């Protein structure tokens, strides 16, 4: 069997990993040695840019730069109305699959994700020096069928066969289990950029048996940042009298600043945020306590799912032997504290929480390839599966937390003489009424021989496979004839649409590697040019006239080559411009800090009686 890689397709960052010849899972880094690929895709006029380069130009090109696309996977226009208000790119109103407008074209979330997957695929191919076309891809455990399908579609569009869709917390447990770091009853608490999962497993004799899982596919570090940004916007309004909330570029600057500050506050008690805007430089000291006050309600939202998972596993918190932390957001001290309080023991995270899911995906890939025979993963379906019956009530066919693969049979008949078709509505969720659950698809069973009402007996088999995805088969019992089923996914792409996208991805074969590198270099140059222009406008007076003219010279030099195709020239001029502005940047930072200190002293003086 050819090489299979493991991919963690994350909300914030994505990674690709493999198991090396010595049987050790390893992250595959890119040409520059970076292990994490930011899950950001920019649709620039010059072409598509993915990763760090796309992230860096986010604040300058917010309408065409898509981030956190995972939050839109497998969802309908109606579901994401609230989410859409918080992103700077345009979500096209629709009843069906979400579409994002970038310039004059519309893309779907699976297509955007496919760009990320393709970049990872190329990264792996560059590493192995051979084609890679098979992967194990992870998804949040609490992803429903439509979200899993969207991930599979993305993979297909990227030219990768998704051999298995694995749940992120389970993948993490495999990585821990491989190194014998976790045994017994394990709780995996996985808080990422946009999703939260809790999974309870029994790890015994090489069998990783998931007992229960729960979560929230719209809760993560993104939400922490959003809470901080809201607070910063209010603060800016109060201090500078400016409302930046409808300025997408400013909001993105603040979002990136908030994210960086949040990360620093995991190891420091206080940090200073410094953001130069056109008319003023905003600075604000944030303490860990302030951050915790803002995010506490969000962190607390993870505890309910934890209790429900424990309840479904028929366990009390103290029976859990070990708690494993996964996902970048578990670096936040408040998160660790809350988890520790709930389970009454210290959680651990020996393996890098950003990488452990990808490593686990690589382990699962190795199992599928036959490289590991003594480890077996038994996962569950996170949500109950049912069909709508009379009165809009759901009849459950497969309960949540059932070990997969699993199947259930249901019998249907006709209600009118001569009826040749029956339709059914399949849903996922825990509520009694169909309208409160997630509609997965409507199935049309047709080709039933005309018979008196109630005579046909159509056996429908609902099978959830090892990917946690539904397959449906139908057979008329009397005739033994397979009934044909037409599936109308409620929030997914049709088979024809995916096939078209796969084809498009060949015809619009993306720019070759060189063109891609050129776009990235140009993007980087634009970012630097922009920063320098701003710095000169605000802090030009801080440096001597000679230095100013040196900077302007370097600026013009870069501007001269930036639009061209000589990548080395652009890169060199960018480096030179960066070097020319080093002391200006330093001076601006010092001044800002000094002002911050002075103004605080002034505050203190004023407060005194």
């Amino acid at each position: 069997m050819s090489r299979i890689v493991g991919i963690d397709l994350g909300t914030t960052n994505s990674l690709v990993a493999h198991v090396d010849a010595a049987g050790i899972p390893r992250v595959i880094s890119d040409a520059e040695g970076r292990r994490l690929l930011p899950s950001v895709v920019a649709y620039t006029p010059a072409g598509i840019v993915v990763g760090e380069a796309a992230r860096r130009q986010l604040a300058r090109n917010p309408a065409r730069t898509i981030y956190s696309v995972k939050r839109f996977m497998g969802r309908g226009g109606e579901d994401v109305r609230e989410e859409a208000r918080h992103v700077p790119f345009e979500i096209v109103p629709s009843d069906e699959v979400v579409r994002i407008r970038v310039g004059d074209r519309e893309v779907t979330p699976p297509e955007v994700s496919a760009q990320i997957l393709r970049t990872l695929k190329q990264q792996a191919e560059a590493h192995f020096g051979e084609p890679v076309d098979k992967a194990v891809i992870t998804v949040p455990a609490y992803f429903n069928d439509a979200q899993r399908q969207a991930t599979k579609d993305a993979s297909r569009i990227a030219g990768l066969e998704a051999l298995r869709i694995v749940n992120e917390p389970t993948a993490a447990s495999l990585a821990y289990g491989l190194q014998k770091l976790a045994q017994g009853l394990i709780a995996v608490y996985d808080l990422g950029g946009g999703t939260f999962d809790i999974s309870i497993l029994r790890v015994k004799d090489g069998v990783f048996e998931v007992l229960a899982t729960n979560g929230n596919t719209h809760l993560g570090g993104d939400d922490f940042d959003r809470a901080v940004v809201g607070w910063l916007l209010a603060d800016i309004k109060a201090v500078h009298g400016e409302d930046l909330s409808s300025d997408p570029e400013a909001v993105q600057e603040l979002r990136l600043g908030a994210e960086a500050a949040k990360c620093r506050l995991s190891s420091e008690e206080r940090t200073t945020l410094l953001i130069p805007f056109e008319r003023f430089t905003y600075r604000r000291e944030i303490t860990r306590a302030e951050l915790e006050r803002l995010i506490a309600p969000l962190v607390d939202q993870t505890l309910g799912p934890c209790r429900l998972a424990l309840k479904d596993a028929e366990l009390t918190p103290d029976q859990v032997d070990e708690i494993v932390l996964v996902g970048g957001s578990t670096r936040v001290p408040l998160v660790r504290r809350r988890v520790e309080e709930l389970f009454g023991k210290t959680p651990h995270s020996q393996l890098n929480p950003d990488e452990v899911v990808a490593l686990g995906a690589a382990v699962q890939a190795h199992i599928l390839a036959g490289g590991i025979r003594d480890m077996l993963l038994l996962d569950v379906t996170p949500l109950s599966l049912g069909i709508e019956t009379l009165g809009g009530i759901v009849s459950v066919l497969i309960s949540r937390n059932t070990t997969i693969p699993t199947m259930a049979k249901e019998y249907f008949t006709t209600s009118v003489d001569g009826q040749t078709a029956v339709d059914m509505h399949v849903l996922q969720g825990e509520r009694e009424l169909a309208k409160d659950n997630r509609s997965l698809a409507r199935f049309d069973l047709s080709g039933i021989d005309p018979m008196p009402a109630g005579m046909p007996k159509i056996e429908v088999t609902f099978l959830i496979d090892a990917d946690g995805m539904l397959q449906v088969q139908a057979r008329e019992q009397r005739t033994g004839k397979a009934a044909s089923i037409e599936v109308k996914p409620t929030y997914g792409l049709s088979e024809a649409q995916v096939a078209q996208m796969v084809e498009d991805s060949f015809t619009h074969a993306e720019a070759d590697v060189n063109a891609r590198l050129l776009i990235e270099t140009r993007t980087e140059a634009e970012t630097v040019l922009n920063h320098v222009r701003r710095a000169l406008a605000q802090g030009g007076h801080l440096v001597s006239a000679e230095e100013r003219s040196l900077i302007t010279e370097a600026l013009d030099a870069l501007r001269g080559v930036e639009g061209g195709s000589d990548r080395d020239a652009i890169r060199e001029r960018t480096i030179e411009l960066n070097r020319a502005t080093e002391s200006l940047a330093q001076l601006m930072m010092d001044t800002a800090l000094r002002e911050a200190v002075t103004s605080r002293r002034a505050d203190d003086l004023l407060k005194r009686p």
Partner: protein
Amino acid sequence: MPNYFEVFGLPRKLSLELQELQRRFYDLSRRHHPDFHQTADALAQAASLEASALVNRAYRTLRDPLARVEYVVALEEGREVREETSAKPKPPVDLLAEMLEVQEALQEAKSEGLTAEAAERLRTERDRLEARRRAEETAVTEAAAEWDSAVDRGADRQPLVDRFKQRLAARAYLRTVIDDLSQALGEDAETHVAHRRH
């Protein structure tokens, strides 16, 4: 298709050594799980998927003492078992009288709102019904030995089947009423659903 006891190579008895069941479950999973048949042809892959699904369902049913009894009853009657439906079961005759009071309390809470007094009353009723439900469950599981000996002796099992059915029906009904009470008390819908699990 083999029945769940046959899947595990076990006699159709209710007393089960759970550790042993788990051991057999792991063994069968290692044999059939699709992960180990990824390189096989399409037909073999489909077979592994089906076998694995059967093993998983069989384990889920047999490891739970009450689901095990329900399954045995269904087997004896030659019908297929399925997951719980949300269709409300009818109250068993012997429970009818005492349910009147509960229904009254529920009605009152509905029409007059959930006062502290009404909530207290609902909670008391719920506790009482929970106790009653547990009693039904215990009665069912305690009859396991009786059943097994009937199997060994080759005795008529119908009276036992009837008794199991009666108790299981009472339990199913009690669960829905307990759910209704929890709902009337305004408790978390998610937690409320969790009650319905075996």
